[in-house]
């Protein structure tokens, strides 16, 4: 984890990140002005419903872009270094894999079927760091141990492995180059609970023992709390709340985040979960005001305008309720509830 431009700057700062796609029906605003910061040895989880832009955000950070990009703007700083300014070639050579690695969504189904899994884990080292094969294979075995794959599996092919083992191999591939940061896109969503719990244990261990930092993307809110230091909630291409996990899970602020939390079935509580009426808006021509407005139980006149991002006790929330205008609304609705 060398090559840090500034030890004072946070590990990753994402500013005004935008990724729009061109489609036959119009421009899809998959990522639309995303800001967040990640400190070293921290895990931020990005939660949100299907289609809200989580995977697109990961792709935008790693500059893994499809052909139909309409707009790709914003800034990302890695330890203070502006990486969006790098040429594609430089980014590929110095940042992707070496500094920021990713376990893509459904990675376990995307392993190369004709390559032994050990060789696949060794490959990034040979390609991105020019390491000799024998040395790279040694490193691969080390990674297998770290993620809980039996060492002799290095000689096997992907189809000979269970889903859980394949997902661990994908994780080993991301770890092998010793990046500063790993982005995990739905790493356990397709796995059984015991396998899921085992892999989350492994991630916690890697974070603690190696000081690794993570961005964990998932729609599974319960599992997200297994790793989260901070939580960012995404809705319709934007982040609507970011805050410390401890406080977020106790008391989410944004009305969408509150509803989302209330929809999670809980094993240890008997309260019935609720659902959010309606669907997220289309990301082609999304509403100009608050994107959650048509489903929001707290909506008021001001919500027809796009909400600003408000800072409250170190938490960020994109909602009019937390402005001066909204304070009155909040009081009003509280007294209404009490009546």
């Amino acid at each position, binding site marked *: 984890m060398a090559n840090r431009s500034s030890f004072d700057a946070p590990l990753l700062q994402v500013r005004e990140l935008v990724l729009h796609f061109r489609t036959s029906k119009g421009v899809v605003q998959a990522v639309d002005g995303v800001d967040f910061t990640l400190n070293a040895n921290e895990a931020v989880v990005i939660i949100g419903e299907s289609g809200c832009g989580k995977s697109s955000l990961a792709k935008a950070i790693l500059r893994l872009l499809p052909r139909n990009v309409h707009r790709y703007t914003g800034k990302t700083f890695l330890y203070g270094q502006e990486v969006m300014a790098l040429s594609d070639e430089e980014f590929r050579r110095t940042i992707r894999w070496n500094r920021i690695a990713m376990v893509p969504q459904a990675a376990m189904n995307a392993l190369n079927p004709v390559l032994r899994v050990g060789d696949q884990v060794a490959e990034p080292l040979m390609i991105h760091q020019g390491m000799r094969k024998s040395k790279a294979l040694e490193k691969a075995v080390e990674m297998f141990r770290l993620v809980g794959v039996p060492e002799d599996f290095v000689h096997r092919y992907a189809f000979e492995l269970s889903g859980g083992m394949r997902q661990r191999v994908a994780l080993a591939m991301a770890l092998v180059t010793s990046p500063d940061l790993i982005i995990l896109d739905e790493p356990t969503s397709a796995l059984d609970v*015991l396998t899921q719990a085992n892999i989350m244990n492994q991630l916690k261990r890697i974070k603690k023992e190696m000081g690794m930092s993570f961005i964990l993307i998932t729609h599974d809110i319960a599992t997200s709390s297994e790793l989260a230091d901070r939580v960012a909630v995404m809705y319709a291409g934007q982040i609507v709340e970011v805050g410390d996990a401890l406080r977020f*899970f106790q008391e989410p602020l944004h009305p969408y985040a509150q509803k989302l939390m209330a929809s999670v079935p809980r*094993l240890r509580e008997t309260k019935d*979960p609720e659902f959010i009426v309606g669907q997220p808006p289309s990301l082609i021509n999304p509403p100009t005001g608050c994107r959650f407005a048509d489903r929001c139980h707290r909506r008021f006149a001001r919500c027809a305008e796009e909400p600003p991002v408000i800072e409250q006790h170190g938490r960020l929330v994109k909602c009019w309720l937390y402005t001066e205008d909204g304070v009155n609304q909040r009081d009003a609705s509280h007294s209404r509830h009490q009546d």
Partner: protein
Amino acid sequence: MTQATADIKIDTTRDERVKPASDAPSTRPEQGALLSVRNLRVWFELRRFGFGHAGYVRAVDDVSFDLNYGETIAIVGESGCGKSSLMKTILGLHRPTEGEIYFENRRLNDFSRREMQWYRTQVGYVQQDPYGALPPFMNVRRILQEPLIIAGVKDPAEREARIRKALEEVKMTPVEEFLPKFPHMLSGGQQQRVVIARAMILNPKLLVADEPVSMLDASVRVEILRLLRALQQAHNLAVIYITHDLSTVRYFSRRIMVMYAGQVVEQGEVNDLLSNPKHPYTQALIEATSDPDAANAMKFREVPSGEPPSLVRPPAGCRFHPRCAYFIADVCDKETPPDFDVGQGHLARCWLYR
């Protein structure tokens, strides 16, 4: 439905079938076991190219349970433990290798093709993946028409009325808006509603739902589970709810069966079993299931490592023994535990309770 109607099976059930779904509760005074599964085994023959027979996959290995009219039961277990094989056998899609299935006291194993056709009208099926469940080139009207046509509902006006009714029941309104839509124009949650409407349209007595919400977002998941529960109550439906997610079973079913490696290792009343799990495997499943809580990040979960065993050569004795923290040497690895009653019909298949 009365016993008389049931006896006549195919020929006059037609009259029964054309009744709108809303007539259901009043025409259903039945009590007792709707479905009985007795020592069921479903083994698949394993063939290796060039070698012929190479053993059996024991997907379901000695499973017994009863399901009463209007009762809900959850079957919980990890992937590959045999949940879908059990369910498909109950649906008549696989033949039992051994053992019996009785539906309204009639032995499914002996059903003729016509009886099977009748049986299919009695049992609705909601499958795991809504995205693969609906034919892409049929619109919602066609999709819901098919089962009615197969069941012999000849009058188009009658069919249309029942289609509308079914869509209203799954809250797809205004109905006109959805009738002409094709699956790709619907969200995952709406697709699953159509699947449910299709499963309900013949007014079945039993609904089998195989992981009906595992592919859906949390908020949609709750919506669909609530819908299923409302239908269950309105029609006094018996439901088999198959899931790997323990956190949803309480909202949905009264009884629960936990499966491991082709066998039921624990069963009982839901609240009792979840708050007082006896089998080490059930305990592990509960330990591994998280509720959203920031404290989770501060601790490791004590779960057994390893993976479920091969069903071709399952471990001798208790199938969980290679992963079990309470393993008793020379007992657990030698003899298969029977079901021990740990109180009020709560059964655990584990030597700890001998």
